[in-house]
């Protein structure tokens, strides 16, 4: 009995330790966002007077609304463009072995190239060859990163089970396209949504491309927040508030992501 309880205690200590490592910075940011600059730097940490003044300042003193708007625009557009394309690519690869293993290996390899290697050629393309507005350039870049990533995730959703359903639909009189849109896509929808959410979050948090391909007016949240750290010193308290606001959409999406990812992964259990 005693040793069982001891083991449980040990387990919780270890888990608690890891949780703390993840939670502490977030809690720290939360604390800072609710205090003023002077209290924020005090050690040991103090709570001091709590208020929402930093959250108000985020909207009045910075371009927060525009950054937020830019991020939403880029992430939504990039996801809307890449998701259907990625679904069709994954379908083609799964169903017809289009491109064979080199394609899927290439897709995987593209995820392993350090972004900095790609960003310079892209910068040249978008500044000299096809000059486009900053937001468009960032969106295109995000499509380029997200599409293979999403296709890679989705390839496994178009497996033997959906194939058999499609065959049934084809014999029922459906064209290949009808079978794809009316059977395969709805059946794989949880997985497709999960891939879309992952892509959205990836795009939302993306920094390097957004920084180098954009200009002042096309700053996304990730870039805008980073800029706060340099101009006129670090305005730590409003920065913390802005960071939490930037995180909010991702935090809101996470429960959905989890649900759909689990459903997507259990697609095989059609019976």
């Amino acid at each position, binding site marked *: 009995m005693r040793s069982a309880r001891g083991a449980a205690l040990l387990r919780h200590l270890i888990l608690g330790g890891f949780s703390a490592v993840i939670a502490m910075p977030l809690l720290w940011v939360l604390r800072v966002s609710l205090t003023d600059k002077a209290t924020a730097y005090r050690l040991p940490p103090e709570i001091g007077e709590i208020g929402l003044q930093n959250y108000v300042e985020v909207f009045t003193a910075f371009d927060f609304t525009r950054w937020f708007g830019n991020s939403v625009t880029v992430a939504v557009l990039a996801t809307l463009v890449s998701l259907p394309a990625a679904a069709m690519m994954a379908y083609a690869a799964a169903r017809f072995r289009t491109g064979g293993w080199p394609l899927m290996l290439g897709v995987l390899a593209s995820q392993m190239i350090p972004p900095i290697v790609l960003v310079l050629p892209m910068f040249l393309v978008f500044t000299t060859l096809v000059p486009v507005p900053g937001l468009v350039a960032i969106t295109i870049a995000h499509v380029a990163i997200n599409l293979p990533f999403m296709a890679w995730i989705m390839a496994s959703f178009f497996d033997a089970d959906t194939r058999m359903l499609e065959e049934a639909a*084809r014999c*029922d009189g459906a064209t290949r396209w009808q079978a794809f849109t009316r059977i395969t896509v709805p*059946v794989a929808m949880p997985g497709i949504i999960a891939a879309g959410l992952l892509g959205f979050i990836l795009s939302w948090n993306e920094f390097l491309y957004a920084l180098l391909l954009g200009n002042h007016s096309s700053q996304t949240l990730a870039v805008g927040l980073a800029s706060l750290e340099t101009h006129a010193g670090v305005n730590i308290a409003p920065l913390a508030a802005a960071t939490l606001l930037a995180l909010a959409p991702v935090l809101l999406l996470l429960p959905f992501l989890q649900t759909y990812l689990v459903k997507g992964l259990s697609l095989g259990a059609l019976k």
Partner: protein
Amino acid sequence: MASIELRSVSRIFGAGAQAIRAVDRIDLRVEDGEFMIFLGPSGCGKSTTLRMIAGLEPVSEGELLIDGVRVNDIDPAERDLAIVFQNYALYPHMSVRKNMAFGLKLRGMAEAEIGSRIARVAETLGVEALLDRRPAQLSGGQRQRVALGRALVREPRAFLLDEPLSNLDAKLRSVMRTELIKLHRTLGTTMIHVTHDQVEAMTMGTRICIMRGGEIVQVGRPQDVYREPVDTFVAGFLATPPMNLLPARLDVADGALRLRIEGQEIALPLASRPGWARHAGRDVILGLRPEDLHEAPVGAATAALDCTIETVEALGPETILTLRLGRDGTELAARLPPEGDWRIGAALRLHADTSKLHLFDPETTRSIPGN
């Protein structure tokens, strides 16, 4: 309603040295309104053949005709055949009703007509109460009915059934077997039914097509295939226990055919099987169905075989004995009436009905015709 014809049809998977001929130049004509059974061991190409007919698998060589029209390159959607898969392949995101309506909607049928067809089929199959459920909320047997219903509402030119009963328990399977036979009788639509269950094969079809290794071994009415198997494979495949196959030597002496089987002899008049005389002086395989062995001589044409009882299986209406020829010779089975006092290890003299004997050539495994 359709006739289906395969002319030297092959399906080759892969290419070059690794190419597999899953179906090897088969010729078959399924007549309009026929209930054809594809029977054979696992991997013999039954499903592949069915899928080629459905259009889900390309025809690598040869010609496939439906109602006399070459359909090699016709899309499955346009063949107007309905297929029922072993795992049913119901659309999981649609209700039973929508599953059934799917194919009709694609054909642009009016809602009212769709509704009445579904109602009719649902009643036939007894699934009215399930129409608004999702496939996940159905039992295996119910899914099977819905899958069948989805095919029935289409009123297709032919039904292709790929082991639709194999996931059901024994009782449900025999119920569905009867229902399928009835359905075929009322609809009169061409059906091809894939199975490796020989009871299904014997009872359901108007003809059986027995396959092995991508080839057709024999096609015929169930009783004909049973009575006249063309080779030892068919003889050994149909029925449980299958035909006994005993190594023997054939001689002709004094106007009689003499079969010597491990020291015992069966004699029969030469006139009864003149064709066998050509194999005199050679080794043969003697084929003898378990039900053609009796405890007492039946009629004039019998020959005694001394055996030793090895196992006794009392099945109720009959008893299956596994025996050894002589004391410890080749194994054979006998199907006897249920009453009898059989002890394991005891000697038993059985009487073979010599009018029911088969001979096979041990080299080619083909049947040796008696006349």
